[in-house]
């Protein structure tokens, strides 16, 4: 049984009978004929025999991995932000920011390539750029560079800005479980003004695995 989380930039695939862990491939390299038993993600409906909406997959995966009744999980991907807040085993709130929080991960990847930066070596800045969206945030970066900031400083401030925005979007919790591609970005994670637990990039696949088992 193959499970697929078909993101905008990257696709996570998992043959749960043959592979111990999922694998990641670039979404642009996915063959059109690929079919999975269960699929989620932005492009999931194109490839899955059954499509599961991303919030449901995120919530199911988080419930499986997190042994608490009250928690908030925030998924920061290439294209959007999603969160689910549980309270007493019930979904207390949920949000999916596909417009105002759009293209954050994708924009960071573009910037790193353009300026030849490595986010693993970037220091966490003390200041941040007030951004809510990757596309609109670009002009803030260019303005900062024009005013004398080095590209790595400007991009790090941009990343910190989107981290703070994502944190507020999730309801400003005291503890936050993070998933998605941006959870692997140290500047992003360390910019969060709360306790952070990183769950990695396969939480939605865990949700699909749980759904497949019931």
């Amino acid at each position, binding site marked *: 049984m193959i499970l697929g989380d078909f993101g905008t930039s990257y696709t996570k695939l998992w043959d749960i009978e043959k592979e111990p862990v999922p694998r990641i491939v670039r979404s642009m390299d996915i063959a059109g004929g690929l079919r999975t038993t269960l699929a989620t993600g932005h492009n999931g409906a194109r490839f899955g025999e059954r499509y599961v909406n991303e*919030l*449901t997959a995120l*919530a199911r995966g988080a419930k499986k991995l997190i042994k608490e009744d009250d928690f908030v999980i925030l998924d920061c991907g290439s294209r959007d932000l999603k969160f*689910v807040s549980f309270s007493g085993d019930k*979904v207390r709130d*949920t949000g*999916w920011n596909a417009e105002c929080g759009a293209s954050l991960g994708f924009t960071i990847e573009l910037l790193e390539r353009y300026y030849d930066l490595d986010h693993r070596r970037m220091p966490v800045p003390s200041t941040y750029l007030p951004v809510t969206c990757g596309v609109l945030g670009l002009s803030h970066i260019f303005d900062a560079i024009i005013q004398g900031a080095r590209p790595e400083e400007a991009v790090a401030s941009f990343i910190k800005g989107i981290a703070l925005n994502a944190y507020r979007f999730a309801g400003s919790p005291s503890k936050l479980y993070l998933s998605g591609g941006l959870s692997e970005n140290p500047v992003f994670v360390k910019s969060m003004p709360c306790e952070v637990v990183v769950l990695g990039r396969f939480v939605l696949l865990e949700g699909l695995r749980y759904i497949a088992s019931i």
Partner: protein
Amino acid sequence: MLSGEKAFLQIDQVLMIRNVGIVGMPPREVMFRLKGEGAKIYDLDALHVKPDLEITASYIPRVYCAILRTVLTNAKKMFLDAIYIDVGEGKCSGALYLADILKVELNIPVIQTRNEDNVRFGNPVCESGLPLMEKMELITQGVLEPEAMKNDPVRCEPAAGFWGVPPRDFSILTLFPARTHIFGWTRCMENKTPADAELEKIANPDVPTVFFAQSFCQKTALAYYLARRHPCGLYVDADVYIGHSTRAKVQAFLELNGAID
């Protein structure tokens, strides 16, 4: 400004009227009179002509309540003899301003009413087991009828709640189970007491409930506040159409809280 009663003073106008648009819920007395005169009544809150919200940009901002933009589009494109527009607590301040705009821009009588009807007709449709879409259609069509509906549908035990106004895009309603009870202003509509602020605030704390409002409507504040205080409430607002992310939020919320399989 004319009250509901004063609107009847324009009896000569009413006698000549054939096609009448209504906005919100004018008082029952107005509706009785119009029906008695044989007028064909159109609910301008609903879609009657091909959506062309660009037409409204000459009069009101593009970022504005989609329902009121629909009203303006209908009013501009339909051949109406008069419009009765309810303003005040039974509708919204936006309708009050829109009434003035329509009065200036259209060459037909635009009559403001204030619906303060307080005879309660109950909520058999809101609490029935009919599909939510069907319930909503019955209630919105009921605006045209001053009498109570005949043959009340059978009540069901609720599995979920929908609180709010009839949405501009009804497709959100397909996400709910049939055992969804309706609350909020839609409940006031069925009860024929649109200004009943106390009834509007009621929701069932025992079932997961989606608190819906049109984007840019003042009711977003009430929906947001009530959702935050409900034991299992989700606040949602939407503009012209229900987007993919909003649809997913509602679906996940209902599914994860056991309202749907």
